[in-house]
């Protein structure tokens, strides 16, 4: 890359916006990949159960499957809001 590219005005660098957006979405899609198909539904149903007792937003739930030396770990993270006492 030429040194002149660094001297160009910083406005309108749509390519860097594209790169950032792609890095985020690709990372997210990769983390879902290879996981069991039931994962999104599991997440939704678990959320529904939790919601019966605590108000939580869909974004505050994170379901992840990790494979570790022949054993699979289903990890469920629910971030409760600050004012809640656990």
């Amino acid at each position, binding site marked *: *890359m*030429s*040194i*002149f*590219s660094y001297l*160009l005005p910083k406005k*309108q*660098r*749509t*390519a*860097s916006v*594209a*790169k950032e*957006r*792609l*890095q985020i*979405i*690709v990372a997210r*899609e*990769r983390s879902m*990949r*290879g996981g069991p198909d039931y994962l999104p539904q599991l997440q939704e149903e678990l959320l529904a159960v939790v919601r019966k007792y605590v108000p939580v937003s869909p974004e505050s739930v994170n379901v992840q499957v990790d494979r570790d030396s022949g054993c699979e770990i289903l990890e469920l993270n629910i971030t409760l809001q600050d004012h809640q006492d656990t």
Partner: protein
Amino acid sequence: MTKIVVVTSGKGGVGKTTTSAALATGLALRGFRTAVIDFDVGLRNLDLIMGCERRVVYDLVNVINGDANIRQALIKDKRVDNLFILPASQTRDKDALTQEGVEKVLNALRDDMAMDFIICDSPAGIEKGALMAAYFADEAVVVTNPEVSSVRDSDRMLGILASKTRIAEQGGGDIPARLLLTRYSPERVLRGEMLSVEDVQEILAVELLGVIPESQAVLNASNAGSPVILDTDSDAGQAYLDAVARFLGEDLPHRFLTTGKKGLLGRLFGGQ
């Protein structure tokens, strides 16, 4: 040993067929017996790009169904020795492509026709045709444009290649997949309007097979029905020739990554 190569992308219109035609022609020019198969059942296109549309008698589905044998269906290229085209069927029957059928065709190309390379031109999308084109592959070329939806789809396709090929299913792991970045415009990259080859490589994290510059030669070639790699004066033709050389294991520097003609200053500061 016959090598089966899938040319795929996920997204449509990025240059899969142009690339399949160029890659197959380039390999045949190097003396390898090469067949290129159009897997886009329903929407036949490779025959037009290869300029043999008026010579199509039988197609891939005819061979699968046993209506014709592989010798009858293969179209021998008139310009390049060792180059053969197997066109797609125009049937709208989605189930025409079966795994057993495709395997039979590939085996016939390997055993009866003694092909060195079989290039599978995948349809767009991630449905049956695309999965069948990829299933038996030993190696993949992922065609990507420096554009968000194409890069995302390529990543998706790389994920599919890692799990949905015969080799992967048999525990052989990922097949080697290499990136071919097409319609690249160094001017726009310089202006910060287009993802650079480094950006795309960083996101997809696969080896780079080549960069094909955005070129008028590509449309001219498809208009004429002559693979662009035969237009050796053109930038795109030369870029494909380089990509074929790299495909065969040669170590060539990447060209056409910087803007047009460079003066002394450009050479000093332009890098690459």
